[in-house]
């Protein structure tokens, strides 16, 4: 097993509204309009809102009708979680070039372990510069960076930094830095936040001024943890993810197989089996190897049996956990340079992986979500096909506007479907 990588010194990379930024990056000019992203679930409420829309009074959690009522020029965007995951994975991979200790927290929020990087990159400013360069150009003006001992200090520093800037909290100055920060930076629920404000506690310094025991008595274990975070007593290290060992799936044929269709079928079975492996959960396949033991044959007429084999290596440009995408390049290789004899044993190995994210677990990791993503892809493809054939395809989405309305025409609306 690999050693678990940790780093007490942390850099926090925070790109607020990451999914919205992904949309702005691929739709030129979108940032100049008030924009809102719909929630990926079925509630059809707003998930993320651009600053222009926010100025018009639109807030996350609003229904479409409420938002349109406040801002008639609002542009609504259907979410594309798989794309956001892929973009986030690309960010994680790029950060992995700077440090081997990378811990994703949520979409757009990553901790980078920076212990020992001084020897490679130089001063903290140079390391921060190197991290900044890993962010895609369109996000460099919005990314906020924080530096400190432990993830909490780094996060608070990032949350207080201006866009495209960094705040470095030197070692030993955590308490001084944290003391002036508002209590909102603590991971607390609405109720505790309200109670703290009612007690007149507005900053972490004010919280730390109260004895730890008193806070624990009032708020229990949660309060104790909050007090310790505020006092800089907890410095959680960044924990890098351990890359899983290769995953191997093999199939031995009762009789050697030479038919291409049978081999393709066997390959699909192996891919499905390897994807189901528990070690694969949370990871996308980046590199794989397909090999075959071929039927023993006579070589050179000397009647001595010789073991023969066949092998292909594939590196996926875009790491994926989708069976079809994994199978496609292998099928091409099977077609172009097939085994030179009948196959006795077929072995598939996933040899390298790219990290997924927490959201990936929700959207693309499990089979159901992968199927959903596949359906969406197929739908987009079909819609494009229809549009190409009939030039103007009248395809619409049905969205809930006021599903509770007593007036039937107010409940739903159609909106253009443009893949």
């Amino acid at each position, binding site marked *: 097993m690999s050693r678990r990588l940790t780093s007490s010194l942390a850099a926090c990379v925070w790109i607020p509204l990451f999914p919205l930024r992904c949309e702005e990056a691929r739709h030129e000019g979108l940032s100049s309009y008030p924009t809102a992203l719909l929630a990926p679930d079925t509630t059809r409420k707003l998930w993320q809102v651009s600053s222009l829309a926010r100025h018009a009074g639109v807030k996350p959690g609003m229904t479409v009708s409420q938002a349109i009522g406040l801002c008639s020029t609002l542009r*609504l965007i259907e979410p594309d979680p798989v794309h956001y995951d892929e973009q986030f994975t690309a960010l994680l991979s790029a950060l992995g070039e700077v440090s081997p200790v990378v811990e994703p927290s949520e979409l757009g929020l990553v901790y980078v372990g920076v212990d020992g990087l001084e020897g490679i990159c130089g001063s903290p400013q140079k390391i921060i510069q190197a991290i900044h360069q890993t962010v895609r150009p369109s996000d460099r003006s919005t990314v906020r960076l924080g530096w400190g001992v432990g993830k909490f200090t780094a996060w608070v520093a990032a949350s207080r930094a201006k866009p495209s800037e960094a705040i470095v909290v030197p070692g030993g100055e955590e308490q001084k830095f944290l003391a002036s920060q508002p209590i909102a930076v603590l991971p607390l629920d609405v109720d505790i936040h309200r109670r703290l404000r009612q007690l007149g506690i507005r900053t972490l310094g004010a919280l730390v001024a109260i004895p730890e025991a008193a806070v624990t008595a009032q708020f229990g274990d949660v309060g104790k943890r909050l007090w310790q975070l505020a006092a800089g007593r907890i410095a959680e290290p960044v924990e890098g993810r351990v890359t899983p060992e290769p995953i191997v799936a093999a199939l031995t044929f009762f009789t050697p197989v030479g038919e291409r269709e049978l081999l393709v079928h066997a390959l699909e079975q192996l891919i499905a089996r390897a994807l189901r492996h528990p070690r694969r959960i949370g990871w996308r396949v980046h590199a794989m190897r397909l090999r075959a033991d071929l039927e023993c044959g006579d070589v050179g007429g000397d009647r001595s049996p010789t073991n023969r084999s066949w092998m292909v290596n594939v590196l996926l440009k875009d790491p994926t956990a989708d069976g079809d995408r994994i199978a496609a390049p292998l099928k091409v290789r099977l077609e172009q340079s097939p085994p030179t004899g009948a196959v006795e044993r077929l072995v598939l190995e996933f040899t390298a992986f790219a990290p997924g994210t927490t959201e990936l677990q929700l959207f693309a990791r499990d089979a159901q979500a992968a199927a959903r993503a596949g359906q969406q892809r197929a739908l987009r*493809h079909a819609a494009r096909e229809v549009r190409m054939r009939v030039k103007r395809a009248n395809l619409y989405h049905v969205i809930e506007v006021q599903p509770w309305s007593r007036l039937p025409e107010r409940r739903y609306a159609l909106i253009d479907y443009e893949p």
Partner: protein
Amino acid sequence: MVAPARAPLRTDRLRAVNEPRAVTVELNESGRMSVGRPDGQTVGEVEAILESWRIDDEWWRQPIARAYMEVMLEGGKRMVLFQDLITGQWFAQMP
């Protein structure tokens, strides 16, 4: 490759669903309700009124008052009609 996502949805391209369609409702010689289209075509005669209800809404701005009825036309076709109680006009609509 990531497939390009859909273009942003513009709210000015929202289309209403299930908008009321104007119809004419008249009493014919035999005293039965007859439903027709605005262009004069007949939809059918009302055989029976199955259900009726009323909606009063938005009294605080532009009041809405509608008398709905689900009717069965001759031949068995079902239809939901309503009369706008403010203008007196008749409409057909899905329930």
